[in-house]
Each structure stands twice: as C-alpha cells, then as structure tokens.
C-alpha cells in the first residue's frame, strides 16, 4: 500500500547514507558470518557452545542489516525505537512462552 501522499518528502536528516563500497563491505561481513555459522554447525567440537554462538552471530547479522541497510544508524532515533521496542517485546514473549511451556 504505497500512499503517495508525501512522495516528495525529503529530509536533511536522511541524506547521510553510506556509499556503495560500504554496502559491499557489509555484504562481505554478512557472508563471512553466515559461513562461520554453518561451519560451527558442522564442527562437533563446537556443539557444547552451539546455541550461544549461533544466537550471537545471528543477532550480529540482524543488527548489521538493520543499522546499515535499513539505515537505522543514520536515521532519526524515533525509527529505531519504533523497531527495537516491538522486537524486544517479541523476544520477551518468545522467552516467556518457552518458559511457561517448560522448554527450558
């Protein structure tokens, strides 16, 4: 539902987006992290720490995409709040439900 009401909106605060090179660098980092994740999955020695390592790595990927590709790092803080608060709530709900159902 694209509403073209304010299609000419442009704002000074939103101009400082990074350049193509930085985008590419992020993509390389994301690829490397994904490769590490899959590697961790296949290395038996890593299995005792599999869950915390994977959760950390995927959170890192998540944060990189949100901060750089979705520009939260450069945009107004309000947008970050609109996204981070619901995400935190969702994570808390997931943890609470797992706890209530005795998953851990």
């Amino acid at each position, binding site marked *: 539902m*694209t509403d073209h009401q304010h299609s000419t*909106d*442009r704002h000074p605060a939103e101009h400082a987006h990074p350049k193509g090179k930085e985008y590419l660098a992020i*993509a390389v980092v994301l690829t490397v992290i994904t490769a590490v994740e899959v590697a961790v999955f296949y290395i038996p020695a890593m299995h005792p720490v599999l869950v915390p390592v994977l959760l950390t790595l995927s959170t890192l990927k998540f944060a990189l*995409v949100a901060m750089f590709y*979705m520009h939260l790092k450069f945009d107004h803080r309000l*947008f970050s709040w*609109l996204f981070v608060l619901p995400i935190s709530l969702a994570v808390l709900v997931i943890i609470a439900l*797992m706890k209530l*159902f005795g998953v851990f």
Partner: protein
Amino acid sequence: MAVAAAVHPAPHEEHPTSTGLSSRKMLFWAFLGSECMFFGSLIATYLVYRGRDTVGPHPHEVLNIPFTSFSAFVLLMSSLTMVLALAACQHGDRRGTAGWLAATALLGMTFVGGQCYEFTHFFYDGLKLQGNLFGCTFYVLTGFHGTHVTIGVIWLWTLFTLAIRGKLPQEKSLDVEIAGLYWHFVDVVWIAIFTLIYLIQ
C-alpha cells in the same frame, strides 16, 4: 519517545511535520514493529512445540543445511542489491535503479523457487502440513515468510516498471527506500529463522 516537537521546516517539504520526518516512513516502521510481533508469535509457537512430536519426520531427518545456507546467502545478497538500487535512485541513476531492482527481484524469485523445491522435497520425505507438529509449525512459519518474499517480489517488479518508464526520479527515492525497508525486514526475519529453525535443531 524523546520527540521534541521541534519543527524544522525541511526544504522541498510540502506538508511540514512536527518531527520533520516523513509520515510514510514512520508508518512503515510502525508496520515493521507490528510484523515483529507477528513473526515473533509464529516463531514462539515453533519453539514451544519443538521436540514434542512422537512421530517423525524430525527436523534433523529432513532439513538440508547446505541447500538452505545457499538460499540464506541469496537473500542476503538481495539485500545488498536492494540498497544499491536505493543508492542509484538517490543519485538519479535511472538505469542503475532499474537494474538493481530487477536483480533484487530475481534473487528474491530464486529464494522463493528454492523454497518451493525444498517444500516439495520435504513433502516426499514424509513431512506433511497435516502431519506432525514439526510439519505444521514449519510449513506455516516458513510459508508466511515465503509469502512475504513473494509480495516483496511483486512490489519490486512494480517499482522496476516505474523505473524503466522514468517514473522513479530522485525525488521519489522514498518509494524505493520503503520497499527496501520491507525487503530488508524479510531478510532479517530469515536470519532469525535460519538460526532458530535450521541451525539450532
């Protein structure tokens, strides 16, 4: 919520807003916040029901990590092409915009195609939507993600059509940016799904 109502009359702004921020973009971030709760509930259900099945197939018997790693990589790369499309649009590069939009849409279609292939395979491995809990929670969660990707692909081709007709000039880069937010969101959801469902079995 530290939005002081400082009114900066932004240049080229037809409707000045209290925060100086675009209303459409704000609406879209609120929408993504809402989507977090949607996927959060789906993921919670998957995690709550994991390991309760008495009959197979179980996750480790069907999930194909190498194949899905490739899919995850494809979707990550589509996020790169998406920001490049936005950058091109912001620089008024019409051909770049159209090209990167098309690339993103094609990568998205590759992902959806991969999901169709994966679903078919799982189906023949005995994983049914109407079968065990793993079947129904897995198909519904990843199916909703796939639906989101499909909607994104349609959105991207729509923008592509506009771009090649020269209807996505610099001033309309917000249209591309918002589509991009959607696309990246679908990507980060897959980052979560890939870890929580595929890698942590």
